[in-house]
């Protein structure tokens, strides 16, 4: 029995199915094989009988007398009931597999998938973005699916799973990859017709071992490396653009950058180097004027991000209260420090003074041999600086 089940759930590629590389493959292949064998049997019964009758009972004379068999109720009831029971068994087998596919794993690592015409982009727990899917072997993963334009569907044949990406909704699939992928990875297809580029909307899934996976994540997490979902080319991201993205993700609901209206917190427009008066200061002697040097301003802004309640400004005659601190987001690691710096650079760029792009991040964040064509001093680098106000579609 056991070995039968094993035989039914083949893990290697067969004539019919590609190899199965996830925990979902087992049930699916099992159901597939059961149905294949049973329906195959029925097919041969029907066609066999048909051909036999054609030969055995072929017409001899135009006036052959045939028996007057009109019906046989018991027989007909039998061949109504038996198939009915069989298909409902199939239903149950499929249902079991489906529940496994459709129940989100609570312990799963979550990857956000966004579909657009015509590319997938995957956002990893550490904030990294890429348009290929990297998975850790034997670790449950949950893909949160969303689309920005029309219907798409993400289909991983080897994982035996697919789901539509519905705009305006967040669907999900979860599974556990059980095999390391080959070097070239496995295919990820879009199966829901989405326009001209539908057949070109594919990417790869790589299932890696722990070490390679962490390495890969670190590389992807580099906030200064951005892989364009359309062209697939990596480019260096200047401070200001990164700052803008971080603003979108963290600050935009309280701080306006277009006008100097107070939404909740003080607007950032023109904030850099404008006279501040405070309704609360931890150091009563502390003042901040436009004339103060950059360092003092940098220090102030850093503090406001990490310890917002240290100093509270009064703006447009309104005494503003503090916000909850972002120290967890913008400090504690080199990356976070650089992100904080990016935010401050962004605020600078919104100031009323002429803004000169900051010197690009050092080699820990910028790997010259990896992206030679995007060296900060190169054309592209400077252009990227100039372009900071034009913004990319914000991933999330």
């Amino acid at each position, binding site marked *: 029995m056991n070995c039968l089940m094993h035989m039914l759930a083949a893990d290697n590629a067969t004539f019919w199915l590609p190899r199965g590389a996830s925990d979902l493959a087992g049930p699916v292949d099992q159901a597939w094989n059961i149905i294949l064998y049973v329906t195959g049997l029925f097919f041969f019964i029907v066609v066999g009988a048909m051909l036999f009758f054609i030969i055995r009972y072929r017409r001899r004379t135009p006036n052959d007398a045939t028996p007057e068999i009109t019906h046989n109720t018991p027989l007909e009831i039998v061949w109504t009931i038996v198939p009915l029971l069989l298909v409902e068994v199939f239903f149950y087998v499929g249902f079991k597999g489906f529940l496994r596919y459709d129940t989100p794993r609570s312990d799963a690592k979550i990857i956000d998938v966004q579909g657009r015409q*015509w590319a997938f982009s995957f956002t990893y727990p550490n904030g990294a973005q890429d348009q290929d899917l990297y998975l850790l072997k034997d670790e449950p993963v949950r893909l949160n699916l969303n689309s920005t*334009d029309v219907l798409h569907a993400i289909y991983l044949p080897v994982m035996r799973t697919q789901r539509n990406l519905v705009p*305006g909704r967040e669907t999900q699939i979860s599974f556990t990859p059980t095999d390391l992928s080959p070097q070239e990875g496995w295919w990820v297809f879009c199966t829901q017709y989405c326009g001209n580029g539908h057949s070109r909307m594919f990417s790869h899934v790589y299932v890696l071992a722990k070490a390679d996976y962490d390495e890969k994540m670190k590389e992807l997490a580099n906030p200064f490396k951005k892989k364009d979902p359309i062209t697939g080319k990596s480019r260096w991201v200047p401070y200001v653009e990164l700052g803008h993205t971080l603003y979108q993700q963290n600050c935009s609901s309280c701080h306006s950058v277009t006008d100097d209206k107070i939404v909740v917190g003080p607007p950032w427009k023109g904030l850099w180097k404008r006279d501040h008066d405070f309704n609360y200061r931890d150091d009563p002697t502390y003042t901040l004027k436009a004339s103060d040097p950059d360092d003092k301003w940098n220090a102030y802004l850093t503090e406001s991000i990490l310890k917002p309640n240290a100093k509270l400004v009064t703006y447009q005659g309104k005494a503003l209260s503090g916000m909850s601190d972002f120290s967890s987001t913008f400090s504690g690691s080199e990356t976070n420090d650089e992100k904080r710096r990016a935010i401050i650079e962004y605020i600078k760029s919104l100031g009323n003074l002429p803004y000169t792009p900051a010197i690009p991040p050092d080699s820990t964040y910028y790997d010259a041999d990896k992206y030679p064509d995007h060296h900060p001093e190169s054309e592209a680098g400077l252009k990227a600086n100039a372009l900071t106000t034009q913004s990319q579609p914000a991933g999330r």
Partner: protein
Amino acid sequence: MNPYQTASMNSPHDVHDAPHGVGHIVPLSLLLKVFGGLVFLTVLTVAASLVNFGEFNLVVALAIAVVKASLVVLFFMHLRWDKPFISIIFIGCLIFVGLFISLALLDSGQYRSSVIKQEAPGIKDHHTLLKAPPQ
């Protein structure tokens, strides 16, 4: 003899009224009564809408509407006197409508939690959405 005569004679009500014609003739008094009933129910439903039944607002409104509808169908459309098969068609149709609506409703209710609550982007700026992505 002609089978269709038997057919018509067999249908329940053709016999006693309008022997020369076909179909059933509804007495005017009945029509008037039905009309009165409908007007009354209309007033009632408006009145009911001024009272708060909480969750039952819709139920009440629909219940009254159903009564009105059945009055119209049974008497104005004289389904009451037509061949039963016509009622079967009519009810069958309503069953399919119910099936359609209830299953769609059930599904949307089930996946409601996955719907992202947001103002429709197209209302804000629909050109952004329709714009073809960079080639």
